[in-house]
């Protein structure tokens, strides 16, 4: 087993799923810091991705994670390569305090500051997640699979907090399914976790569904883009 270079961090997951939903760009712009531009699949419509991870091995043990992101234009240096996509996670919820503190300190990722409950109900060709907090539901999402292939995908992740703006490359590896069959669904509940979203304006059917099984997530070292 090779030793990771300094600054790289790996997280092993059993399940990583993501649903992409259209939201009004006005909502996306309210969420994004000024230096980031939302990607619009349709004019006036930006992309909310709702992702859920079931990590079984990491620096901070096993935990579940719910991530809300807005997709943004990737940064590109002269001669550089474009990532598969770039996104700005604007709120994460985790099932353990240790994972939350780790992600805030290490990656400057904004968190819901209390444990959430996250359940994965896996079928042979579909999967349901239910996230809740304090006995109240946050979000229910149902996604389906299509066809599976082994992949290694590069993503660009943007972070922003009082200390500055950052980016990191995230590599996702494992058996992967992606489709635009519009067979999934989402219910976004009335909960403080969802306060940044215009719930009535979220398209309840994902235009894209992604699913990785038994894979590996690798964070590259954080880069400071804008410092105070």
């Amino acid at each position: 087993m090779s030793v990771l270079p300094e600054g790289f961090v790996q997280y092993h997951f059993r399940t990583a799923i993501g649903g992409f939903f259209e939201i009004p760009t006005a909502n996306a712009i309210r969420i994004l810091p000024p230096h980031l531009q939302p990607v619009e699949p349709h004019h006036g419509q930006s992309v909310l991705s709702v992702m859920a991870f079931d990590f079984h091995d990491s620096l901070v043990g096993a935990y579940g994670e719910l991530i809300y992101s807005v997709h943004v234009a990737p940064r590109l240096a002269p001669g550089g390569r474009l990532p598969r996509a770039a996104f700005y996670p604007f709120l994460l919820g985790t099932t353990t305090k240790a994972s939350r503190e780790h992600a805030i300190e290490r990656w400057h990722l904004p968190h819901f500051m209390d444990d959430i409950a996250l359940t994965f109900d896996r079928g042979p060709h579909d999967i349901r997640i239910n996230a809740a907090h304090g006995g109240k539901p946050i979000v229910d999402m149902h996604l389906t699979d299509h066809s599976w292939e082994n992949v290694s995908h590069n993503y660009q992740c943007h972070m922003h907090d009082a200390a500055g703006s950052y980016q990191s490359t995230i590599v996702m590896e494992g058996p992967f399914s992606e489709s635009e069959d519009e067979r999934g669904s989402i219910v976004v509940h009335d909960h403080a976790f969802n306060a940044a979203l215009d719930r009535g304006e979220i398209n309840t059917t994902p235009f894209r569904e992604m699913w990785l099984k038994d894979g590996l997530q690798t964070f590259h070292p954080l880069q400071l883009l804008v410092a105070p």
Partner: protein
Amino acid sequence: MAHQTLPPESTPPPPDAPASNGAMSEYDYSNFFYSSSDDLFTIFGAYDDWWYGHAREKGYYLFYQAMSTAPKPRIELEEGLHHEKRALLNLASYNYLGLSYHPEVIAAAKGAVDQYGLGAAGSPTLSGTMDVHVQLEQALARHMGKEAAMVFPTGYSTNVGLISGLVRPGDTIIMDQNVHASIVDGAILSKANTRFFRHNRPDELDRKLRDVKGKKLVIVEGVYSMDGDVALLPEMVAIAKKHGARIMIDEAHSGFVYGPTGRGVAEHFGLDDQIDIHVGTFSKALGGMGGYVAGSKSLINYLMGFARSRVFSCALSPVVTAGVLKALEISEREPQLRERLWANVAHLRKRFADAGVDVAESTSQIIPVMIRKDPRVFAIGEALLNAGLYLQPIIYPAVAKHKSRFRISVSSVHTPELLDSAADILIDVLQREKIL
């Protein structure tokens, strides 16, 4: 507060870094639309790497191949990778009634070039309107059963000029998510609030119209160009009217082929008088180029002043205008062209049904042959080309992921024998490629 801006990542990761496969070969146009950098041209490097290093040879060369004949059922074109001339069966051209090279159309165009020269030499608002333009607009209004019609230089500029000329910031446009890019671009230019409803879903249109205040325009197409399915127009019209919205239909692919007299899908459903704005093109069934709006005299009069894509463009070439005028006359005079088209569509559909070819929800003369396995579509396109059949691959992002396809455009000038030959090639290739 002073900020220090640092450059984005430009150094490669260390050699012992984990695999960092950008999977450039799997990228598509959508990966290169957005980027953020300090120089507008930075994207060119990444795009060139993709295009010349991966995309072109992978199969994108199948686009932009140059044809050296009229878009007849048998054509000659230069294959895009090795630049070899190929004689092919053609099921890719829009020429639904075969009028682009009809002898009378060609004669009309030749007469016009002698009379008017090549171009209109002016905007229609100024010196560019010629008597042949007026004749075409009058003939169109009569054909459509409307008070007036207006001709635009292209189909694209028709939608852009119409929508941005009529709709204002604060108004709301609600359109099917599969409408043509020209409709979307017109909506963007209008600066109106825009909403998309899921394709051909009246319930979604109803949901999107709820609580919308002020002026509203609903936009659908007669036949959708990628799927070949027909708008659920009766339901759409009823919902639009319930909410007090005006309704516009773009009959680019259905004008002159649908309806008892060829007025389009609106006529097919008996809803001609319920539609507020009719749009169409001359580049499909009539085999020319340009577009039109038909409706009330007041609508056309207003657009004369405010459809900027028309006001600030040179008028449609009088040569093309004369050809289109003759093509319209032939389409009215010879309903048997439409009858032959629909007989051909039925013939080809039966061949496909018998062989189990997946044509999705299509019911029109546009027949998508669904491949669905995106990575395979270019290889199949190349196999079809090598076997003598010209079809265009349609891939993401023009259609959704795993919805890749070949799009067939049936014409009245195809013969059953030629359609059988084309079907034989297609079915054989799909079987060899294990799609069937």
